[in-house]
């Protein structure tokens, strides 16, 4: 692409200007403030700036003395080649009016007015996609070279900017990203990064929330447990109540059974009493004898006596009694007594004799003892015989009395006996008559029967007395019936109590169960109290926990957004680094190949070897004096400028590929001496075969090398007035 004509209206110092440019090398020469940089800026804007741009720098392009509605208009005519190498002419006019900006691009007879499309077409023609790209490649400003030597990294940065495709290189982008990442990732406690702040907040809030949620869950569990214990307590109370009720029934049953048994006992007693009473009455009514037993017994006794007497008397009368009172019985005791006296006397005499003899010493001791023993032997039988004699004498005395009685009776006579017999018989008869019995045997039988009867009555009465004591016998039937009624009532009451009334040892069992149930209830109450205490002691507030959850959600969202932002920054940095690394390797190899000839040419063959560091674009040349590689920053400013420019132009070739943007150079050779400057410009002339070169300079030393020279007039107006009011003179 080669610009053949450039027209500017209302652009900085230009109200309106038209310039013709050579397709090869054009020198635009003018003094300071002649508008050279404005021309460079106009070409940049025309090729890259969207006409609808609302950027503030567009506003500042309008001349100070322009009309109020003046807007910058840049027009150009240019030639371009198609893919077949055919040359065509195109026209461009851009009117910068903010959103109302207009563009007209004529290509191949077609006019394009859509700003975006027009810029796309221009970028395709020039190979310059953006303004920054243009400034970093084909548009070289003078100030870029200034200070290269002062700042070792400046050369590398600027070359990197060229290769970055932007006018500020990657370092600024990298620094900005690194700062942003640092700002996010800083872990220090004093100045924590936003990520750390968010992470800490999430961690802290999550921990608090977890505690809160745990407390809420515990509250639910405790309330659940409280409900369970409450139910358990209620069940225990019910069970205890039931057990107590059953126990009361069992006790009631016991009392009823006891009462019923008592009633039964009374019933039996009263019933027995009544029966006995009836039996006694019956027995009283059926005595075998009409005569009371004592009288009967006395009568029978008398009857018995009478019978004996009668029998005796009759026997006496009939001689049935034999008494031998004719011969006196022999006295048996007398011989015995005499013998006994004799023996005792003899024995005593012998013993006395022996003793005397012994005392007198007539006989010896042995003889005396023998004699005394003989005396004793005689005494003992004598004493025995005397006892027998006494016993015989007593018998004889009784027999003598009987014999004397017999003798007396015999002496009374028979009539008296008969009289006695009659009396006795009369008495017996009288007794039998009274007894209405035929004989003593019947009387005896009657007495036996009566005695048995009376004994029977006495026995029953005794039993009756044992049964009722002092109670009136007449009340017995009523009491018996009352007892029977009570038995029925107690039985009904027992039946109404259910099976428990009939269960043996139910009270003992239930007392144990009640005690168990009481203990169980006590435990259930304790459990309930504990559960209630746990519920009441739980200080959790669901709304506070909700607030924590909500804060956590907010912080989590922030953290996620920051995390995403961090990932984007880190990834962007990594992608830029990767792109830079790949690009730099290609660029350094390209530069090493293409710069050598240019540098050798400009330096007159002094430097013929160049090498470029593919990590930072640091350039070294082989210095013949030192016979070593030296960084270009160690060389003179002029040489450095040449190296930079050749590298820059080399990069333009690299990055624009088959496109040929116009090169606009704002006097980059200003530092070269008069020997090297033409050589350098000669290099540009060679380049001008491929690229249109527009060289802006204040010097005329290049005029003879140019295809065209455009001379710009310097500023004409001068300040003739006094200093502005209020500002003191310099």
């Amino acid at each position, binding site marked *: 692409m080669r610009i053949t004509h450039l027209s500017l209206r209302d652009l900085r110092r230009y109200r309106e200007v038209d310039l013709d440019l050579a397709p090869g090398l054009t020198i635009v020469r003018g003094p300071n403030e002649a508008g050279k940089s404005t021309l460079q800026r106009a070409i940049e804007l025309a090729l890259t700036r969207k006409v609808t741009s609302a950027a503030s720098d567009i506003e500042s392009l309008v001349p100070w003395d322009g009309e109020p509605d003046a807007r910058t208009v840049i027009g150009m005519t240019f030639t371009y080649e198609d893919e077949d190498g055919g040359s065509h002419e195109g026209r461009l006019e851009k009117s910068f009016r903010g959103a109302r900006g207009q563009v007209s691009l004529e290509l191949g007879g077609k006019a394009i007015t859509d700003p*975006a499309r027009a810029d796309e077409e221009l970028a395709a023609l020039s190979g310059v996609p953006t303004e920054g790209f243009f400034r970093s490649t084909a548009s070289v400003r003078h100030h870029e070279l200034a200070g290269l030597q002062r700042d070792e990294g400046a050369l590398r940065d600027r070359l990197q900017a060229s290769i970055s495709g*932007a006018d500020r290189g990657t370092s600024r*982008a990298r620094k900005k990203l690194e700062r942003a990442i640092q700002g996010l990732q800083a872990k220090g406690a004093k100045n924590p990064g936003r990520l750390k702040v968010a992470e800490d907040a999430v961690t802290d809030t999550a921990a608090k929330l977890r505690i809160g949620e745990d407390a809420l869950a515990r509250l*639910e569990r405790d*309330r659940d447990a409280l409900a*369970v214990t409450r139910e358990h307590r209620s069940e225990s109370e019910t069970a205890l109540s039931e057990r107590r009720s059953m126990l009361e029934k069992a006790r009631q049953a016991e009392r009823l059974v006891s009462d019923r048994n008592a009633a039964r006992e009374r019933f039996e007693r009263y019933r027995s009493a009544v029966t006995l009473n009836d039996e006694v009455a019956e027995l009283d009514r059926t005595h075998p004898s009409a005569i009371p037993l004592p009288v009967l017994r006395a009568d029978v006794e008398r009857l018995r006596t009478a019978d004996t007497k009668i029998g005796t008397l009759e026997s006496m009368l009939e001689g049935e009694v034999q008494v031998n009172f004719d011969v006196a019985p022999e006295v048996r005791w007398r011989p015995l007594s005499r013998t006994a006296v004799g023996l005792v006397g003899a024995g005593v005499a012998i013993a006395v004799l022996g003793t005397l003899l012994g005392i007198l010493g007539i006989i010896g001791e042995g003889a005396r003892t023998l004699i005394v023993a003989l005396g004793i032997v005689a005494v003992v039988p004598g004493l025995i015989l005397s006892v027998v004699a006494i016993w015989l004498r007593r018998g004889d005395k009784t027999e003598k009395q009987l014999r004397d009685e017999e003798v007396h009776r015999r002496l009374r006579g028979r009539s008296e006996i008969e009289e006695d017999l009659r009396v006795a018989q009369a008495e017996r008869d009288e007794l039998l008559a009274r007894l209405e019995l035929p004989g003593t045997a019947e009387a005896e039988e009657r007495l036996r029967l009566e005695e048995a009867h009376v004994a029977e009555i006495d026995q029953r009465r005794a039993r009756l007395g044992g049964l009722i004591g002092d109670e009136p016998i007449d009340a017995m039937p009523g009491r018996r019936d009352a007892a029977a009624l009570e038995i029925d009532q107690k039985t009904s009451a027992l039946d109404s109590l259910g099976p428990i009334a009939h269960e043996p040892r139910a009270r003992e069992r239930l007392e144990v169960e009640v005690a168990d149930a009481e203990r169980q209830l006590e435990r259930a109450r304790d459990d309930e109290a504990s559960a209630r205490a746990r519920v009441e002691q739980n200080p959790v507030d669901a709304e506070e926990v909700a607030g924590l959850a*909500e804060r956590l959600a907010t912080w989590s969202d922030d953290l996620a957004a920051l995390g995403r932002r961090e*990932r984007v920054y880190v990834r*962007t940095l990594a992608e*830029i680094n990767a792109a830079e690394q790949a690009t730099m390797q290609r660029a350094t190899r390209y530069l090493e190949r293409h710069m050598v000839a240019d540098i050798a040419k400009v330096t007159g063959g002094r430097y013929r070897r160049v090498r470029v560091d593919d990590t930072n674009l640091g350039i070294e040349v082989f210095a013949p004096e030192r016979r070593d590689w030296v960084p270009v920053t160690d060389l003179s400013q002029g040489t450095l400028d040449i190296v930079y420019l050749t590298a820059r132009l080399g990069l333009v070739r690299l990055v624009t590929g088959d496109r040929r943007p116009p090169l606009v150079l704002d006097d980059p050779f200003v530092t070269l001496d008069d020997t090297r400057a033409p050589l350098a410009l000669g290099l540009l002339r060679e380049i001008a075969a491929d690229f249109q070169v527009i060289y802006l300079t204040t010097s005329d030393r290049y005029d003879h090398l140019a295809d065209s020279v455009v001379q710009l007039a310097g500023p004409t107006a001068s300040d003739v007035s006094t200093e502005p009011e209020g500002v003191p003179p310099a």
Partner: protein
Amino acid sequence: MLRLLHTADVHLGARHADLGDAAAAQRERQFAAFRATVDLALAEKVDLFLVAGDLFDSNTQPRRSVDRVAAELARLAQARVRTVIIPGTHDVYDRSSVYRAYDLAALAGTRPAEELVTVLTPDRPWIHFAAIDAVVLGPVFATKRAPRSPLKDLAAVATPPATWKIGLVHAAIAIPGRTDNDEVVITTDEIAASGLDYLALGHWHSVQTAKAGSVVYGYSGAPEPVAVDQDRAGKVLLATLDQRGGRKYVTTEERTVGRTVFERREIDAAVIESQPALVARLRASADADLVLDVRLIGVRPDDLDVDPAEVEEALRGAFLRIRVRDLSRPALSQGALPPAETISGAFIRNVEGRIADLEAAGDDPAVLEADELRDVLRLGRLLLAGQEVTL
């Protein structure tokens, strides 16, 4: 004639994770809506005040919340308005139920014999009000997930004879494919066979009424919206049951008690000129009762630099809550690309190539990574071009 006010799903103490620092205010608004419901019941002199479940958002609500509710119920009781409440799925009548933990009737200062405040439970599924000739049946379960439909065999439940039979159920009406996993589900056939005159429903937060057979039923919805998608919330139902000429007539009327409005607004990032323009545009619809959920969608041009947090901060106070989420995707590179031999050109081509691969993969992780890479592309492109970018 019997008049009743039907509400449900108050969800007192609900969590609003999406409302941020406005959540507490929204909880307060939910209670305010409940108080407004009580005010309406008193103003309309209704006979019955029905709460069809989920009065509380959970069973672990603090005592002060229960006390506040009890104070409102006390106002109803003082006006002799009978309140009947059933537990729902959030305040389910399990062992840790808030209704077991606290005796609402006692806290409201009523005596059991008055039956002015009644919580129906599995043990007490209905209540007969002889004075108003009505029976309220509220079949509930002790589990969050119902073992059966609460309306099953409802018509066979033996209750004292009354002119009006009113049902109180917290359940979803069966919609195949949508309610399959719901905890409590009923069908319109069951409603029609319930023998009720009016069925007060809870569980769905948007108001709606309908008729199944001869049974009029309705969801009152939440008196104050609980979430963004409850566009028909904020209402209660006023029902009138009348008998004329031997025929029963049931009419319902929606009344508004809630204030909060939720709105989800999507804005195409391509039409946003700048962040200040976006703020100005949103400020135009400022509303202190509005929870505005703004989503920037579409393709975001490179020159649009929007920080959602800054937008939210700029509009703080203009809304009850504004949430701005940038779901837009940065544009891919437009126009002529820098040459491939430049760092910028290589960067753009590398990243765009990876984005294309990921978007072609189509799965969620790849799409998410592609979205991030679009931001990487935009950021790197702008930074390499030397443009100002807010980081």
